């Protein structure tokens, strides 16, 4: 059962189209799992339509209409399918927004092991402000206690994990603010896969903290 949702401010920014791409993909991944938030987004879009209805300029649009009608002959009858094809090589149903960023199967990604329990694969999301990655925690695995130099957003895609603050399952949307240290722990019976979005740029300079840098270093891509 999903217990952690994006709050109404997140959903409003999503429905209004103001979120950076990396954050919109994370919210969409949550919506993929959560019917309540989908209903909320539908209402927020309905509100958007009413605000559009109210915003009107008094100018004449006849010239623009003529121009547009002339264009109609040149455009194809139906636009090509815009969303990425479904990714079937994964052992969970990939949310539509994320599927643009994933190859057909997990083996095609390059994974970087960080200790025995955690491996990370960075995704190319076209963002210069955020790093988007998949985090894979082995069943029963513990991730060393670490801090976040920037805000970290996590959506559980498969399996579950827990940390000092709670337990999280598929669909849960979790925000860890800068400075909230934690040590995630995957459930015993199943590997856990998460989508993470971290603010850039972040770098630890303290010698004792440098060992965490491989995990925290930001590579916007």
């Amino acid at each position, binding site marked *: 059962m999903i217990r952690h949702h994006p709050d109404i401010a997140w959903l409003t920014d999503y429905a209004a189209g103001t979120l950076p791409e990396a954050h919109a993909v994370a919210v969409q991944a949550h919506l993929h799992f959560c019917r309540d938030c989908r209903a909320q987004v539908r209402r927020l879009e309905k509100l958007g339509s009413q605000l559009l209805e109210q*915003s009107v300029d008094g100018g004449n*649009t006849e010239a623009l209409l003529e121009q547009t009608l002339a264009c109609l002959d040149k455009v194809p009858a139906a636009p090509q399918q815009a969303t990425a094809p479904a990714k079937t090589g994964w052992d969970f149903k990939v949310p539509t927004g994320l599927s643009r960023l994933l190859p057909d199967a997990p083996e095609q990604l390059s994974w970087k092991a960080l200790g025995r329990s955690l491996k990370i694969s960075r995704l190319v999301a076209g963002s210069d402000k955020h790093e988007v990655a998949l985090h894979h925690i082995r069943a029963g695995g513990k991730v060393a206690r670490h801090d976040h130099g920037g805000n970290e957003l996590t959506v559980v895609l498969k399996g579950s994990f827990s940390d000092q603050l709670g337990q999280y399952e598929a669909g849960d949307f979790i925000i860890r603010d800068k400075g909230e240290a934690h040590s995630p722990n995957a459930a015993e019976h199943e590997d856990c896969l998460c989508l993470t979005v971290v603010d850039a740029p972040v770098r630890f300079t303290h010698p004792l903290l440098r060992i965490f840098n491989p995990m925290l270093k930001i590579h916007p891509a």
Partner: protein
Amino acid sequence: MSALRKRLTATPTPQGHAKGQLLDSCPLEQQDPWNQTLATIATGDRAAFADLFRHFAPRLRAFGAATPMVDSPSAFGDELAQDVMISVWQKASMFDPGKASATTWIFSIARNRRIDLLRKRNRRPEVLMADDMFPDMPDDSADPFTLTQEERLGSHLQDMLDTLPAEQAEVLNHVYVEGKTHSEVAEELGLPLGTVKSRIRLALQKMKVDIEAGWQP
């Protein structure tokens, strides 16, 4: 049309109403006169397209021109209006009034096209397109609870918008029409982020858009 037909098929719900009656009691879909126009446009009717254009183009143009940080707002307004209307022409046959009203559907196209046009203008990499971030959501309308919630919102939204305190209407406009995040609005108005968030939340609660009170953010 299949989703609409499905909803019109009378099936008893826990409330003892047939779904068909529920739809009739507060039918936003039927009250949006543009639903029918879109169906006509889907047959290739240019006169219907012109009708729709004359209503929506001035709105889409204002929506585009309100976008911050574009060098020529009025040119961007024209570009967006034309682009959205051409998309409407191309996609009219995909419009499903069982999922959203015509006006809501057109809003979502405008939102998506604005994102993509701005990305192109700013020469940012086109990895994620708006249609990836806003895919068609599954049709949850078969669920009586969802349907009831939708009906409750109904067509009163416009009236309720008019009764909002100016400061709440203002922030909603900044977010939706100008396309600014909560944080950007806070910065522009010189208000703490918490104040902007609570103004929006109050407005949404008043209008019964935000009705999920049970869960923690």
